[in-house]
Every structure is written in C-alpha cells, then in structure tokens.
C-alpha cells in the first residue's frame, strides 16, 4: 500500500482525528525520558477502542510496519522510542477502569489507565494497589506491566509482576489471546501473563489487564536514621531484615544527595551525615508500634548517630518530602540527568556505594546516589550537560563500568526500568548468548515479521 493509502486506511480504522502524520506531531512521539537521540515514527495512531487497537495491529502486521506502543512516554531506557520508525500506537485513550471487585480483590483495566488513578480508585473502595514507580502520577499501567515497574514499596509488597493475575493481549494478527484469570489460583495453560510482564511491547499488545488488589495496612510509622558511615547504614538494612522485620520502604540517601536536597528544600537534613535511611513500617497498629521500636533499637545498635521517628502525619510527610525531592534537587544542578537502576543483592550495597563514589572521582562526574536500599535497587544519578560531548562520553563509560560491577556483585542490569534501547547491548554479559538466541526464537514465533517494538531487549 502507498503511504497515502495507508494513512487513509489507518484513519478508517481508528478515526480521522486519531491519526497523526504532521512532522510536528510525530516529533512529539520521538522520545521518552531516556537520554537517547529522538527518532520520529512515520505515523502515530491513538485508538479509542480495543477493537480499533486490534485492527491497527493487524494492519501493521499485514504491511510489515514496525509498531511501538506508547503510554505516557516516561520510560527511562528508550523503550517507547520508535527505533525503526513505523507506527507509534498511543494508549492514552484506552483508559477505562473496567471493574474494581471488592469481593474478589482485583481490578480490570485498559492499558492506558494511569497508575495513580487506579491507586485512588482502589483507595476509595478501601483497597490498595501497592506498586508505586516514581512516575506513578503519569505513567500508565500498560507501561508499568510492560516494564515490570517497581517502586518504593518493592521490598515488602513486591513489584508490578506480583500483581498481574492475568490479561488479554493482541497477537500480531490482531487476535485476542487470554491468559490467567480472576481467581487467586490458576493452573490453566501456559503462564503467558508471566511472559508478557516486562516484555516491553516486543511480544504482544495489552488489551485488558487483571490486577490484584489487597487490603491496605491499618497503620504506619516512618523514621529517619542518620549514619556517619555508609557501611553502618547498609549493615543496618541487613540487620533489620535479619530481625525478621520487612519495612514497607527502606530508602537510602548518600551524602551528596543529602546536601543537594537540603540546599534545594531546606528540609533540615543533617548535611554532615554520610548516609540517611528513611524507613517506614506498616500493618496492624500493635505490630507497627513494636516493629518501629525494634527498628530504632537496631539502628542505634548498628551505630546510627541519630534516630528520629515521625511524631505525627506532618513530620512523616516531611521525611518523605525529602526523599521525593532527591530527583528534582539533583536535576536542577545540571541540564541532563541519567538515572541508573543497576541492582545488586542487598548485602552488596556498601560495596556498590563505595564503587560509585570512586567512579565519580575517576570520571570527574557528579553522581548522587539514593534509592531502594532494602532491595538493593539504588539509583546512582549522574547530572551533566549533554552539550559537552567529552563529558557525555565519560558518562557512558562510567555507566558501562557500573554495569560490569553490578554483574560482578551478582546483580542485574536493570531493577525496574527495563532494557529498552540503552541496555540491550549489555544483555549477553548477564545472561549469555544462548539465552539471547533462545529469546530471539521465542520472539520470532510470536512475532514472525518482527514488527513489535524492534530493537528492544534482544536487539533486532
């Protein structure tokens, strides 16, 4: 089909006002939050119904057009950049919460529903959807599932993967494939939902997703512990877990991040501290009281110079405001930001932090490190100016060394951002060539023409 004929056909399938072909519109679908070059698609389509979505996919496959699904475009690894041009399919109009079931504790959503909207809708009915990626105010659940997004609550509540009970998705012919169910147990057929989580749009396109909801904790308490040695902060993390306490969140801030946040927000953080731990325990009120007490004792025993429990909601809010300010505060130092998510077993956090400090010195870079210490998923954040080519090159080299180190420590390339375009070439280091070859055969079987988000995860 000619380009003009294709354009007409997409308009017929998705509605005239939902197909974009102007250079200006296409440029706005050429990027996400990853620091990678823009690549505009040939066309962008925003279906307003699942039927239209299926038909669009089928047409792309018939014509052999690469198809990249895009939700809010907040991806940090380039997963929504249409590397091979083709068609960007925007899911923001597929945003219906189909069902919230109070008796069976699940929700059924379309892929374009924003995470925070489901959280709020569940909360309104006295239920809880725990996965809380940093982008939750804007990112879509389709994107969260495709990237297996994590968040602050990962340590106790798990990540997106742990809440996907089932789904329906379109194959490349636009046929609806069903997997999983609305039941707690399901041993029927292949666990395709497990395969689809984290598949970054390379194996199919989500239609409806069934997500588990849970009762919210009745109480919670937050506290802030100050350390003059990173090692002590990190050993505290292990000691808390060893005491059989699993906090809802266990966040780490290094000295550089502490100072930057303090300059930015004046929250009253101890700027001389080597590290801070922000800890929140939740559950039954009696359990919370007991665990908060124990956590304080452990912090002191491990050498915390100060332990400050939040006396009330306002103080708790202040503690978390300091954590939330980490990215904005660091981002304002320099124009460009690389937010890394290489992850290590939590016992290796001190070694990784030491390594990053050294890395910043060796490459003459500004790196603030903070993140989810409880699950070994730190976010070394490099701030620089991408207009300085030499500096950008050093950033890439430093990141590569960071990956090697994380792998050497028994960790993984990505904790929660996915491989996208930016980490694909390092995959062999972690899983080996055989795994990549097997994955490519799998993809070939599900997507014979290779139209689904080509170039991502296993390359092209």
């Amino acid at each position, binding site marked *: 089909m000619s380009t003009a004929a294709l354009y007409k056909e997409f308009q017929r399938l998705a509605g005239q006002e939902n197909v974009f072909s102007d250079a200006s519109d296409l440029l706005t679908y050429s990027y996400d*939050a990853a620091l990678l070059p*823009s690549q505009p698609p040939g066309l962008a389509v925003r279906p307003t119904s699942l039927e239209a979505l299926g038909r669009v996919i089928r047409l792309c496959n018939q014509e052999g057009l690469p198809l990249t699904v895009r939700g809010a475009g907040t991806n940090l690894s380039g997963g929504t950049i249409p590397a091979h041009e083709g068609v960007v399919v925007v899911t923001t109009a597929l945003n219906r919460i189909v069902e919230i079931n109070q008796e069976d504790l699940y929700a059924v959503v379309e892929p374009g529903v924003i995470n925070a909207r489901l959280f709020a809708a569940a909360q309104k009915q006295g239920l809880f959807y725990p996965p809380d990626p940093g*982008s939750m105010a804007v990112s879509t659940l389709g994107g969260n599932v495709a990237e297996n997004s994590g968040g602050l609550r990962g340590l106790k509540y798990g990540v997106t993967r742990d809440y996907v009970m089932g789904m329906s998705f379109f194959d490349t012919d636009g046929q609806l494939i069903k997997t999983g169910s609305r039941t707690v147990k399901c041993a029927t057929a292949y666990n395709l939902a497990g395969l689809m989580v984290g598949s970054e749009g390379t194996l199919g396109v989500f239609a409806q997703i069934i997500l588990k909801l849970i009762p919210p904790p009745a109480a919670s308490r937050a506290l802030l512990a100050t350390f003059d040695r990173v090692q002590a902060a990190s050993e505290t993390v292990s000691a808390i877990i060893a005491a059989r306490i699993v906090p809802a969140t266990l966040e780490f801030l290094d000295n550089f991040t502490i100072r930057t946040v303090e300059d930015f927000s004046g929250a009253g953080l101890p700027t001389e501290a080597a590290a801070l731990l922000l800890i929140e325990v939740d559950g039954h009120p009696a359990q919370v009281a007991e665990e908060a007490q124990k956590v304080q004792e452990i912090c002191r025993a491990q050498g915390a110079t100060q332990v400050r429990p939040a006396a009330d909601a306002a103080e708790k809010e202040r503690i978390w405001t300091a954590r939330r300010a980490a990215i904005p505060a660091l*981002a304002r130092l320099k124009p460009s930001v690389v937010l890394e998510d290489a992850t290590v077993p939590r016992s290796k956090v001190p070694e990784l932090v030491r390594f990053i400090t050294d890395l910043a010195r060796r490459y003459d870079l500004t790196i603030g490190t903070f993140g989810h210490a409880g699950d070994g998923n730190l976010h070394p954040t490099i701030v620089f100016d991408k207009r300085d080519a030499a500096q950008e090159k050093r950033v890439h080299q430093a990141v590569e060394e960071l990956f090697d180190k994380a792998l050497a420590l028994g960790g993984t390339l990505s904790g929660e951002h996915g491989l996208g375009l930016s980490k694909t070439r390092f995959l062999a280091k972690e899983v080996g060539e055989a795994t990549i070859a097997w994955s490519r055969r799998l993809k070939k079987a599900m997507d014979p023409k290779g139209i689904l988000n080509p170039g991502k995860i296993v390359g092209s």
Partner: protein
Amino acid sequence: MGGITQLARLLGELDEQLITCMRCGFCQSVCPLYGETGREADVARGKLALLDGLAHELLSDPHGVQERLERCLLCGSCAANCPSGVKVLDIFLKARAILSGYLGLPPAKKLLFRQLLARPALFNKLMSLAPRFEGLLTKPVDSLLDTSCARFTSPLGQRHFKRLARVPLHRLEPPRSTPAGASGLRVAFFAGCLIDKLYPGVGRAALKALEHHGVGVEMPAQEACCGIPALSAGDTATFSKLLGHNLARLDPAKFDYMVTACATCASTIHKLWPLMCGSLAPQAQERAKALAAKTRDVSQFLVEAGLVPGQAPAPAPDAKPLTYHDPCHLKKSLGVATQPRRLMAANPAWRLQEMIESDWCCGLGGSFSLEHYDLSQQIGGHKLEHITASGAVAVATGCPACMLQISDQLSQAGRHVAVKHYLEIYAETL
C-alpha cells in the same frame, strides 16, 4: 521573512532554558489541556520538544509549531509542578514572540491590538458606547449571574457572557491621589480592563477595603491594559506600547505597593513586566522592575501588611455555603492561596465549603477560549461539576477572567450559583 536557519538562530536564545527539560513527562499529571486530549503536543514536554526541534532544525514547519504552541492556557500548572524547575511560561511567551515576529501577526489580531488595545482612550470610548447596543444583539438569560447570550447566530457561539457594565469603574471612581490613613501606607490601585469594564463592583469593593484599612490610594487617569493579551499573541510591539503608557502614569516613588484585584494583571505585572521589558529605555526598564517588585494581589497586600484581623469570627448559624476557585495566576504563579480565604473567613454570613481540585484551571486561558471554545468548555465542565458538588450557593474567586468563564458555565447549565470576587465577600463586612 528569513530562512528557517535564521529562525533557528532566534530560538537559539532559548536553548539554555530548553535544555533544562529532562523529558520526565510529569507535566502530564497537571496539564488541564492534556487531561482532555491525551496528545503529547498539548502538554509542556511536547511543546518544549517542538521548540527544541525548530531550534536545532529537526523540524522545518514553524506554522505547525506555532499552531501547537498556541493550544495552551498559559495557566502555569506545568511550571509550578516541574521537578527540574523549567521556566515553561517564560519560554512559551518568548517563543510566541519570536514565532509571531517571524511569521507575522494574523490581521485580525493586528487590528485589535494595535488599533484598539494599544490606544486606551479610544478603547475606553468604544467600550463605554457598547452597552447601549448590547441589547440589540443579545438577550439576558440569568439575572443572578447577569449573563446574556446572542439573539442571532453570532461569532461568539452559544456563550453566555457577562454583560458589560453600564458605567465603567473609571467613571464611578475617578482618578485620585489620597494620603495614607491609619495604616501609614499608600498603594497604587491597578484596576485592569475586565474589572473596569465588566466588574466595576469588584473594583469598588477593593477601594472600600483599602479605605476601610486607612490605606491611601493612587489611581492614575487612563490606565492601559497590563498587556497580557498582546504577549499571549506574541505581539511585543503592542505590549511595549502599553507598558510604556502605564509606566508614564505610575511612579513607584509615590506609593509603597501596587495592588490589583485581578490575578492575571497581578501575575503579568509581577512576573512578565520585568521579563519582557527588554526593548524599553534603561530608565523605563528600571521603573518596570520597581513596579513589579511592589505589585501584590489585594488579599496578599492586606494580609502581609497585617491589616486583616488574625482571628476569624465563627460562621453564623445561618451562614450560606460558599466555595472558592483558586485562579492559576494567583496560586500557581504567585503562591497566593491562603490570603483570599482569610479575607472571606472574616465574613460570618458565609461558610467556606471547599470544592475538590479547587486549583484545577477553569479553562478560560484568555484568547485560548476564543480560539478553542470547545476545549475551554470541556475543561470548564470539571469546574462546573466540582462547584455543584460542593453544595455552595455562591462561588468566589480572585480573577475577573475566571469569573467570566465560571459564569458562562453556570449560566449555560442553568445552575443558580452566584459568582463573586472574594473582595465582594470581604467588603460586605466593612
């Protein structure tokens, strides 16, 4: 018109600001327009990418970029919530000026701004004649809201617009220069076009409050528009002319503060006069900056100066429920949100009943509403629902432009909720 490379060079001056956007996309969660359309070109990140694309010659369609750049309410919700602190509005206004300079101003806007708005005497004269003819073309629809709609098919569509004041403020309250009273303070009162021509009652309430608190008032003759319509359209020539006109009439040495009861005027003077006065003579620039530094919303001034009693009386048993809409130009631009509430709390005849999302934009966005009435209405629809859900019999706000939009919404929906300025509520007690 030069080549696209010349345009790229002009936009290059924005590079230092454009580069600070890290493309996180968080602006999506607060953009009223994106909330309706879900299109990336409608949110700040998309527009910043387009400007970056033009500046780096990834794009060669300035018309396309201009068209998308103008689909924006300039409400500033994105800038107020940006993790990187990108100065979105500064960038957009400068870019609109550059693009309008490069592509030329549309003839209708040129006529309106240069032949009418830039000539305050003529503008006042024409507007004072208008109410006499208003009845021929329009018919009243809601006496509580004082709205009317077109009698015949009209370019204004199905709008229910606030009727023009029979007598504008500058005739009701002539120019003056009164000495400081008990407060020991003197302020210049900047009325603004909408208060002068549509809502003189709000201006009178402001003057009543200032007088009550013993504040001396400076009101120059023939004040001109603050310039925001021209700036929004990228017409810096008209803006400079209006600014020059106002600067000649306002000497900052003569008063302690300059106050307005219009959120948009306050925000424009405080933030945009210093930002966009670069083409004026150095002395005029100094004066613009001095005036900007002295400019406050009336509530902000009264509270800062310690003139409002700290302890609010308890609402009377039969107090009527009142809700409040936070204008974008007060809350997001100037950080003024508690002060108007304090003034309203001083009136025991009303009980404040907060609506949800009181700071979600009303959807007017000045000329945005003229060019994209359907979207403006869609966004305003949420405000309408939130006002209704609050159960209030009146809605107050701090901006005559928001009052216009909210009146249109309520009138069309046939909801009998009165629209007031917070100063009108406050002045009832004086």
